[in-house]
């Protein structure tokens, strides 16, 4: 937690939930906003209104931002989670493997660019042990699971983001324009 204007504000990945993390990443993706506007909106998501900062100097605001962005530790990848009494697994063994099927579904979610894309990505990866493939990829099931996942801590999603980003950057084909081959 970080104290801003006398209030405890979550800033660590073990404190923010995934919904808050999604909101924050979405705000940072808005190109029309400058850095100060972005941070004001981030603080608003976490319960501090813009008007609360009316008497704050720019130096003090910068200090708040610096403290807020001071993220400690590196979260570990979790392969299982429990939701509403059911066990969900994302991979077996020590190494995270990304299947082609999951990648196709994740690519679709990422392309849709909606705010809840991180929780939906996790909903695709984490599979309920007692369900079939068809049931797992059913869009209503994915949406319902994503809604529950949104309440979990952000430390769950970050290692997956890093791992998937690296895998896709290394292994995905590039969408290059056609070249002429003689």
């Amino acid at each position, binding site marked *: 937690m970080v104290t801003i204007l006398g209030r405890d504000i979550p800033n660590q990945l073990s404190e923010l939930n995934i919904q808050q993390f999604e909101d924050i990443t979405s705000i940072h993706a808005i190109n029309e906003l400058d850095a100060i506007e972005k941070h004001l909106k981030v603080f608003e998501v976490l319960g501090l209104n813009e008007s609360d900062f009316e008497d704050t100097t720019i130096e003090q605001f910068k200090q708040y931002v610096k403290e807020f962005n001071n993220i400690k530790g590196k979260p570990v990848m979790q392969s299982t989670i429990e939701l509403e009494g059911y066990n969900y697994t994302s991979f077996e063994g020590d190494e995270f*493997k*990304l*299947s*082609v*099927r999951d*990648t*196709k579904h994740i*690519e*679709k979610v990422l*392309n849709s660019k909606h705010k809840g894309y991180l929780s939906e990505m996790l909903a695709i990866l984490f599979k309920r042990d007692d369900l079939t493939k068809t049931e797992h990829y059913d869009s209503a099931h994915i949406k319902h699971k994503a809604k529950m996942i949104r309440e979990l801590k952000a430390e769950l999603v970050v290692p997956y983001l890093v791992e998937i980003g690296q*895998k*896709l950057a*290394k*292994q*995905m*084909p*590039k*969408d*290059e*324009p*056609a*070249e*002429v*081959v*003689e």
Partner: protein
Amino acid sequence: MNLPKSWNEIDLLQFKEIRELYSIEEVFAREIEILSALAGVSSDDLEDLDVSEVSTLLKDITFINSEPSKNYKHELDKWKLKPLSKLTCGEFIDLEYFFANDYVKHLGHIAAVMYRQHHTDQWGELIFEPYEFNPFDRYELFDEYCINDIYGIIPEYLSFREAFMDKYHLLFNEEEPDDDEDQPMTSEESKAQAEKKSAAKWGWERLIYSLCNEDLTKVKQVTDLPLVLTFNMLSMKKELNL
């Protein structure tokens, strides 16, 4: 998994299938569908694999991101490429239709118009079969030819077309109908625009109808006329205001 290594191993039908898959928006999903089509396995079988396993296979088919060769063949078994300078008016009109309506999808139809049966007459002149067939009845005959042997007729025709349009620009540069619906128009302007739109819609039909002096029984005679002769005559008529 047996994968083709270049366009040399892809026929026209496979090429069209691959190009149709380009409508899939997601890059990875598209590449998987193409891989599945080229390997002859269902995409379901590929989906159980790990991304790293599939990426090795995808590297083997990177040639699909390039264009096939432009060095087309002038002869394919009994078919010989008819020189573009010898096109008839009817052949040109049909080619224009196929090029305007997705030329990859219609590549077989285009080949059917351009590659023809032929013989040499008693004077040693090369005679091409008359255009008395429907390319829609023939396009499948080209499905199994290697795409590298045929694909080049597309840039070849496009280049011919550009030069042709340039040469006869006075006949083609009719004023485009204005689609700006926000602009208020008088009833005369509105009527004139509707007439222009209608004229654009029936462009080729109108031209043929006028060339055969509104006698439908002469349509075949007109469409069999050499393209260049027809457009030379049209240019003359326009220039002399005949």
